[in-house]
């Protein structure tokens, strides 16, 4: 198993490099990092532009630039940013940590909800509960993430107004100044997280619950569940030990495959709730044509996806003996 993991990681590295190369080329060719400078009024002297171009290595040919960047990254240097006071590496780390908080909790919430709803829907197939869940599932699948996030935000504001004090925070990931000790800090963070997490979780949950329902139905109608009943096991035992155990396995792969979608969702959520996370960092960098920042972002985000996919595959092998020796 260890050999398999190592092999997978080794194979992923070229893909990672290729992916960053593609993005690097895309951003370099299509945008002009100096455009912000050039459009300033009054226009800066040519010497300033020259210096800036040198600082950003724009005098080198594209491939050399990429190689320069890549070798720098391996040593921890993510290159110069358009915003001269920003150091890309640490900034990326800080921002991704914030986003990681959001994504981790949202995914957990989505998985738990999806399993509960999916299993109940399957066990009570064609009942009123099933139809209600199905209806809401379809509704959430059709809902634009940004629209729903804004709606939730407004609802949060109304809720706070009704309560007379600010329980749910709608702006930022934490307050600037918190008085009180650790408990106050924790409640502050939680208060900031509630709405964005729900926004992000609900859309993934809709897709996953439909999937879990289908998976559970397939298992419930399987021969081995029938044999388990024929053995004389009680309905509850069969449900947990045989049906659920097997029905949960495919969900592992599905959540992993959807990580890219969730990252995209996080970008939107962070914009709505004005979090200083990786999502907003990307949008800022793109808007400024900050090549190295965007490339660095893509590198980290893609690494996440690849590592997570690998972890999911390994977990799948642990859970399902049939593919263990593949």
């Amino acid at each position, binding site marked *: 198993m260890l050999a398999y993991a190592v092999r997978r990681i080794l194979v992923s590295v070229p893909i990672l490099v290729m992916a960053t190369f593609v993005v690097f080329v895309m951003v370099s060719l299509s945008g002009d990092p100096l455009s912000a400078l050039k459009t300033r009024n009054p226009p800066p002297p040519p010497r300033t532009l020259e210096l800036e171009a040198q600082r950003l290595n724009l005098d080198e040919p594209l491939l050399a630039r990429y190689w320069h960047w890549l070798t720098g990254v391996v040593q921890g240097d993510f290159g110069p940013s358009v915003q001269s006071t920003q150091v890309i590496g640490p900034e990326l780390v800080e921002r991704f940590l914030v986003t990681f908080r959001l994504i981790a909790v949202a995914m957990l919430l989505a998985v738990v909800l999806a399993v509960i709803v999916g299993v109940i829907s399957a066990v009570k197939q064609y009942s009123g509960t099933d139809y209600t869940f199905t209806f809401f599932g379809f509704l959430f699948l059709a809902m634009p993430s940004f629209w729903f996030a804004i709606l939730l935000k407004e609802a949060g504001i109304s809720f706070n107004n009704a309560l007379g004090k600010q329980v749910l925070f709608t702006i930022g990931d934490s307050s600037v100044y918190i008085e009180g000790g650790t408990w106050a800090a924790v409640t502050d963070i939680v208060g900031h997280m509630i709405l964005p997490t729900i926004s992000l979780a609900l859309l993934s949950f809709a897709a996953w619950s439909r999937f879990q329902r289908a998976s559970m139905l397939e298992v419930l109608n*399987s021969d*081995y569940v029938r*044999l*388990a009943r024929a*053995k004389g096991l009680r309905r509850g035992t069969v449900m947990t030990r045989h049906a659920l155990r*097997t029905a949960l*396995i495919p969900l592992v792969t599905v959540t992993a495959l959807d990580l890219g979608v969730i990252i995209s969702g996080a970008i939107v959520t962070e914009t709505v709730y004005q979090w200083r996370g990786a999502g907003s960092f990307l949008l800022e960098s793109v808007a400024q044509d900050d090549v190295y920042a965007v490339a660095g972002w893509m590198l980290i985000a893609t690494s996440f996806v690849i590592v997570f996919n690998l972890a999911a595959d390994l977990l799948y092998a642990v859970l399902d003996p049939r593919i263990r020796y593949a």
Partner: protein
Amino acid sequence: MSVPAVPCVVSRCAVCRRLVSVVTSGTSSDDAVLDVAELQVEFRTDEGRVQAVRGVSFQLHRGEVLGIVGESGSGKSVTSLAAMGLLPGSARVSGSVRFGGRSGSRSRDPSGGGSADTELLGASDSELSRIRGRGIAMIFQDPMTSLNPVYTVGYQIAEAIRAHQDVTRDAAGKQAVELLDLVSIPNPAERARSYPHELSGGMRQRVVIAIAIANDPEVIIADEPTTALDVTVQAQILEALHTAKVETGAAMLLITHDLGVIAGQADRVLVMYAGKVVEAGTVEEIFYAPRMPYTLGLLGSLPRLDVRTERLYPISGTPPSAINMPPGCPFVPRCPLAAAVCETDEPPLAGTGTAGHLSACHFSDKLDGLTPGDLFRPLSRDTEL
């Protein structure tokens, strides 16, 4: 095998056990261990009401092998699933299925295995769970999908044991290995730690048989146990089934469409067609003196080694749709003897003169001494199937 409450050196001997139980339970009660009366099963689908079983009655006696034979769709599997309460929730079951198991002589739970005469239809989940796997055990058709892929084979057998007996995990594990040995699986201790996908189809089916006999059932229902396997493996499975029957002394309900299997294993036979029993009798009566055209047709379409056959006589046509069945005998469109009365009155399962030999045909007397060639046209290029 589990330790009997009454210590007996030859505890594996069925005769001995029977003596023991007769002594401990007092009078030898009714000989029928399973009594099915007017069983009807209906499914409601988008296309109408499917009448899968339309009034089936029979008795399974202690220690006998009752074969149920019929084409796909005749309702034979549904009958057994109905008895076990394993049909999907959309099925409408009526009639009665009574299980007449003795109070288990070897379990510590006095009400286990079903008291004398339990009505299975409509019983609660907890009641049925006590009987399933212990009083009545079932073997399914497809061994490739009958076992849970994520648990080892030994675990799944031990699970069956622990569901009904109060034993430790280790003890159950050891019993599981013994059971694997009983069904002739080589290296049973090692094999117990294998996963189902590491075993061949034949071995998986033997594991299923081991699970079935783990708790010494009084009835074993084998639903098409050999259909999904190839012929050489079939022989091994039939042997394992035979061992199972001898070891447990159980009565067996053997459901199959394979007449060869019936001939080799069954004591009595029920022939089913379109949801009803159309002939019942001993295996000799069915094979050598059939009294229903369908049975004759079945025999005529099989090549046989015991009777000299020169030609095959297939039955033309197809079985009727189970939705919206017209009145009269369902075999009418394919029966060479069909007359006006057959289209209006469905013949009841009635006696034929020999005690115990029943047939559902208006003209069963006419069939006395006939061979398939006398009724059906031989297989030729022009035969419309």
